[in-house]
């Protein structure tokens, strides 16, 4: 396959050409209330070819990977590029080379999910879901297993010649309880780049189910908060969510060039000096967004987006790096062979500080401890609103009442400016997550516990 792709590269007389073979073998088992919602095995394989001719991009994808159809697809990509050249006003003035990826890259996998039969996986999902429903006060349960085995060859005319083998696993459990028509959900999710032992090594499905059940029961008796701007302590998952959704998207170079809030602000202070925010595709072991090379054949690396409060870098691909006069960061990703690469995040997090996590809470007279995010939205101006899975009131330095129906909102950068404590703990805790931006991408995120100010919203009691 690699030779067939290299053949295409040789035939090109354009400014740049890349060819990417991507094979994905995925399996899903999803059981809800004792019924199978989904059980499938899916094979997706094909080639995506992208060319840059006369400053214009063309792309073609095909599932036919023999020499002849591949050549036809390559010519079609060239034709697509040429067809836009007479109307494109500002032609692309070259693209940057960056760190050329060569050789083989393989994820660190302890006990591949392929070693386990579908029967074993179904038994695990079924038993976990059943255990949830047996519990008192639980109305329904759901359990979902997903696995993706990826194999890629990426070659291009800049000299990238790389092979990537990767396995990504996710596991979700949900326990639902209901009170006066209002449903509350307790949930636990895990996601890793790795194998069976990596996803269930520390904590197995039954323990995750027990946690979800406990949360669903406790939330049933929880009160709603009043809306106010307050001191909040965020757990690693919440920190990851804000880092990714509210900040990360604004520094993706395509959004920057479209006029996001950070355009032209490199070098400016945008956060508290306690904050160093990073995107790093090379995080090991087992980060959900582990991507050692991107789909343009650039080696990924650690990119300091914010260093001690100062905006240092944007995330970019080869084209936006050229436009912005910076180096490619290895953030050009395509979800499937039929997608063209676009600027995406990988593992996005805030670095640990030196505060004791317990003291971060003890020092708060009045505030909230927010654990886990669910749903929400963020804009190119960094304004965001997320639902909070579990929110506790903090009174006189101690965690007190559990609350439900809580949301957190504000401007991502205002929130980061208000950070006055960063704990010395650290966890990536979004490995089960996907990001949606025209196409999906497997990402991760997290950080330490941090303390800051944000708007805590909630429904008024009785409404």
């Amino acid at each position, binding site marked *: 396959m690699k030779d067939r792709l290299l053949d295409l590269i040789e035939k090109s007389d354009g400014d740049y050409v890349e060819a990417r073979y991507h094979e994905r073998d995925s399996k899903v088992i999803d059981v809800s209330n004792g019924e199978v919602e*989904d059980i*499938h*095995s899916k094979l997706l394989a094909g080639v995506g070819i992208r060319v840059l001719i006369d400053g214009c*991009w063309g792309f*073609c994808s095909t599932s036919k990977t023999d020499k002849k159809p591949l050549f036809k697809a390559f010519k079609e990509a060239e034709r697509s590029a040429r067809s836009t050249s007479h109307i494109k006003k500002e032609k692309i003035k070259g693209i940057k080379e960056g760190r050329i990826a060569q050789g083989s890259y393989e994820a660190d996998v302890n006990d591949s999910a392929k070693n386990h039969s579908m029967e074993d996986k179904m038994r695990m999902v079924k038993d976990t879901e059943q255990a949830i429903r047996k519990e008192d006060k639980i109305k329904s349960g759901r359990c979902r297993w997903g696995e993706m085995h990826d194999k890629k060859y990426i070659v291009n005319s800049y000299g990238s010649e790389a092979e990537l083998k990767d396995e990504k696993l996710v596991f979700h459990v949900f326990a639902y309880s209901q009170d006066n028509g209002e449903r509350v959900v307790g949930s636990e999710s895990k996601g890793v780049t790795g194998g069976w032992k990596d996803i269930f090594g520390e904590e197995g499905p039954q323990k995750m189910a027990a946690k979800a059940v406990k949360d669903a029961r406790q939330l049933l008796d929880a009160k709603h908060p009043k809306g106010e701007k307050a001191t909040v302590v965020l757990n690693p998952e919440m920190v990851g969510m804000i880092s990714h959704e509210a900040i990360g998207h604004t520094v993706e170079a395509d959004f920057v060039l479209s*006029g996001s809030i950070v355009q032209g602000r490199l070098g400016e202070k945008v956060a508290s000096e306690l904050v160093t925010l990073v995107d790093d595709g090379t995080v090991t072991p087992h980060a959900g967004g582990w991507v050692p090379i991107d789909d343009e054949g650039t080696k990924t690396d650690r990119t300091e987006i914010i260093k001690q409060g100062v905006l240092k870098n944007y995330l970019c691909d080869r084209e936006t790096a050229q436009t912005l006069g910076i180096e490619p960061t290895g953030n050009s990703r395509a979800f499937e062979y039929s997608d063209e690469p676009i600027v995406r995040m990988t593992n996005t997090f805030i670095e640990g500080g030196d505060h004791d996590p317990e003291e971060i809470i003890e020092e708060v007279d009045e505030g909230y401890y927010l654990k886990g995010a669910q749903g929400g939205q963020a804009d190119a101006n960094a304004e965001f609103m997320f639902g909070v899975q579990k929110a506790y009131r903090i009174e006189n330095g101690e965690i007190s009442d559990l609350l439900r129906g809580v949301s957190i909102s504000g401007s991502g950068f205002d929130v980061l400016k208000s950070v006055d404590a960063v704990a010395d703990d650290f966890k990536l805790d979004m490995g089960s997550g996907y990001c949606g931006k025209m196409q999906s991408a497997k990402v991760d995120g997290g950080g330490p516990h941090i303390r800051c100010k944000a708007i805590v919203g909630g429904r008024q009691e009785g409404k």
Partner: protein
Amino acid sequence: MSELLSLGDTLVKRALENGADDVEIFMADEKKNTVNIEKNEIQIGKSQEKEEVGIRVLIGDKMGFASVNSFEKDKIMSKVKEAISVTSASISDENYTIPNPKKSIKVGSIYDPSIVDFDIEDSVKYAERFLRSAKEYDERFQFNTGSFSAIVTHRAIVNSRGIRSDEKSSIFHYDALGMAVDGEDVSSFDSKQKAVHFVDEIDVECLGREISKNTVETLGAKKAENFVGPAVFSPEAMMMISYMGLIQPLKASRVQKGMSKFADKLGKKITDSRLTITDESNLEEGIGCRAFDREGIPAPNLDIIKDGTLKNYYHNSYTGNKEGIESTGHAAGSASQMPKINPSNFVIKAGDKTKEELIGEMEKGIYINRFSGNIDPVSGDISGVAKGGSMIKDGEKKYPIKETMISGNVFELIKNISGISKEVESIPLMWGGNIHFFLPQVRFEELSITSD
């Protein structure tokens, strides 16, 4: 004979020989050329081919599913065998079924033969006209992202119960997301999309002008006031309400799981009498128009809510079996997914007021152009932000609003409708299947509006 049908015949035969009691082969052959627009420029021309085969197998009371993106027989057969082996891992359920054929329905034409010659260069021309029309209407409009696509799809289904159908469709889809910028003043984002089946129905200029106008009109936005009062939802905002707040609880799968407020409400009044919702799979203007669903079942027009009374849920064969009734023909999803449930063309019947009357009758309220936020399909709770809306006072739009939070509950709001417009807009949705919305503007009373 169609090559896909003939491939389906072979695969059904071989799946039965390999031990399946029943089998369904769903195939889709899609060719698509797309031109993406980004930052006021043509960004890339793309040409994509997709072959998909979904294999659903029933052995006893157990179901298995596998899919592959190739029409090569050997590759498919290895997945047929995998679907059969997956079945043994599955859970027994007597309601699983591979459906029997149903009487066909007549749908209009959804295939324009000229799409065969509509290549990437044609798409580029339309994309360029789309972009130009928006900028010519007002230079301040910034075309952030958008696209023009021409998609031709051949779907075919063959099952062991005698269903054997295929259908070709052509879709021209175009969409835009952008904002207006005037110095330091930046409007809210607005998004618009259209989809038609025929080349001569494409009107990119109209949509370009519309989004340009919408965004420019929301420049100079100010905060709204804090109050509880009426709000007029645009068709775009109604699409969010409909998709999350109405369609989800109307799916029989959710009703049967106790996750729908509409459970046990068939024949009962659940909304204001002004609201009538129908599903019209034969409406050829819609991209939801089709002769058969994901299980090969036709969907005759269906009353969902009639004059405020709940008439039907959306069913596929599985949920129908559970209640001893027939599928309504709403199995949905791509060939690579097990059939789920979704509407085809979702139609809210036009009302008796003009758009101007809806606004003109309000003392104090807001107009919501786009809704960005959460709607919980179980509780119906709405919380989010009105994007590109206006403050209305004394029957007039006074000024554009920003940072305006709205909250309420869908199931309460639909009982509290005070007007529906005569004008209806069509909005396509192409996420994981084709649904086309035909929606008027709707005025709801008693929304909580906050702008602190």
